[in-house]
């Protein structure tokens, strides 16, 4: 299939019932839908999820396969709250999967996740488990019950290679997810580092890995409307996050340093803080 026929298929809205809903904690639920195309998503890609009559929002894929796709959604506003109120059997629309994916690397890799940014990294970790020599994971949150997927991570990586941090010290180390990194970098040589989460964290990780010249792939979030590289809502520098990203290499991020972690476009196209 040529590019445009392929994109037309991915971009065609498919309405489909929610087949499973699982509460991950007080504010995050995982939703599973049947969709053949989204079931082919690779780690790092996202889908556009239509909550009929409410909104359509971008969400990273947590899991894909067997004709199904799952996303983990934190209730933060109108669209996500409406989604949280939906029941199994409720109809939603999906488009996608869209965007770039993480490189599935061999060797020693480290994954650094914050908040719902942990979702695509868990998906990646499952795919890497068979390939990589050693998987380490750093996961951070404000408080214990916001640490997502601790159990799943423990079973994908070995338990001792998962390092958790909380800002209030209710679980693991009492610090930000970026704090233990220097020590880890001293101890071990990583072939590739992956990160996804709040942009300030992602930028910090980038600054640290740049200093030490460690390869990095990071997933960014921007306001997304079309999801296919048309409308310009998601641009950062010369890139469209929905099409050229959301996963970027360190080399690409260095080309957009003035905006990465600094500014993004708001709903009216003006520059605001990320």
């Amino acid at each position, binding site marked *: 299939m040529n590019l445009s026929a392929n994109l037309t298929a991915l971009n065609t809205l498919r309405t489909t019932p929610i087949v499973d809903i699982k509460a991950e904690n007080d504010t995050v639920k995982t939703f599973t839908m049947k969709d053949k195309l989204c079931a082919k998503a690779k780690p790092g890609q996202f889908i556009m999820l239509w909550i009929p009559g409410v909104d359509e*929002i971008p969400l990273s894929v947590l899991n894909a396969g067997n004709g199904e796709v799952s996303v983990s959604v934190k209730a933060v506003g109108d669209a996500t709250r409406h989604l949280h109120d939906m029941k199994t059997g409720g109809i939603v629309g999906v488009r996608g999967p869209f965007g770039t994916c993480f490189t599935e690397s061999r060797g020693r890799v480290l994954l650094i996740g914050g908040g719902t940014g942990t979702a695509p990294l868990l998906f990646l970790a499952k795919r890497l488990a068979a390939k990589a020599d050693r998987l380490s994971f750093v996961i951070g949150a404000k408080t214990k019950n916001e640490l997502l997927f601790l159990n799943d991570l423990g079973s994908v990586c070995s338990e001792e290679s998962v390092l958790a941090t909380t800002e209030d010290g209710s679980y693991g180390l009492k610090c930000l997810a970026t704090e233990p990194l220097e020590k880890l970098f001293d101890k071990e040589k990583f072939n590739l580092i992956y990160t996804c989460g709040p942009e300030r964290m992602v930028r910090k990780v980038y600054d640290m890995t740049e200093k030490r010249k460690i390869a990095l792939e990071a997933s960014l979030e921007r306001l997304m409307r079309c999801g296919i590289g048309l*409308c310009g809502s998601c641009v950062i520098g010369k890139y469209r996050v929905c099409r050229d990203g959301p996963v970027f290499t360190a080399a690409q991020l260095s080309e957009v340093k003035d905006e990465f972690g600094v500014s993004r476009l708001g709903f009216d196209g*003006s520059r605001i803080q990320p």
Partner: protein
Amino acid sequence: MNNNLLNVNIAGLQLGNPTALASGILGYTGDIMQAVAENGAGAVVTKSVGVNPRMGYANPTVVQAKSGLINAMGLPNPGINEYIEEIKYAKSILQVPLIVSVYGYSADEYALAAKKAAAAGADAVELNVSCPHVKYTGSEIGGNPKLLRDVVCKVKAEMNKPVIVKLSPNVTDIVELADVAAKAGADALTVINTVRAMAIDVETTLPVLTNIRGGLSGPAIKPIALRCVYDISECVKTPIMGCGGITDWRDAVEFLLAGASAVQIGTAIAMEAPSVFQDINCGLTDYLKRKGYRSVNELVGKSHRA
């Protein structure tokens, strides 16, 4: 692409080739417009900007149709005062003409936005009198001969940069409106904006777009746009930028033969890739050479004389 075969002059703007970025596709920041120019666009048009900021409609704002896209973004834009800095920045890095698209709710608003855009460095302004999905502006102005005349006259009176008027196909007689714009002083016409359309989801029985109605773009509208260009160029002497569904060099050649002096490209940037500009320019060059033309300008309107 730097070959003289493709040079065109439209509305006093010198373009290295006859392809331009259409308004509302990516065109928010200087950096992304520069990226489009690096992909071969001969000029860029910004997102439409008004006097005041607008948030646009809630998603879904874009829905796929079988051979096109339907969008109702709702003119999200930061407002001209905020956008001035972006225009200045864009001008400082772009090597191709920068056309700033403006809209308003009255002739005064169009003129104010246009004046500020020109003062910030825009090489020309394009008047969006053809957006099909925002009330009291766009096609509600461009579809009314008297309002259209007032807007174009007012803008022309208040600035000395070229003024391009972008027309809507959602009218009874586009030629009449093209004539009104031309007589009011338009330096060029962009033909066409999107065709009013909608999509309904059968499972939920709901219209998909939050705004219900949107505008169709892409290959589906190419034959409509081509006919509009042909009809207008038969009666009106003002140069035309053809727009609507252009995806490859053949499409571009068709528009030139129908009477357009240049073309604008939108949807194909997403459905194909930003390199669509380069591809079209290469194909166009090959065609000109194969046919023995010395300049792309020789194609303009040629189908009328055939």
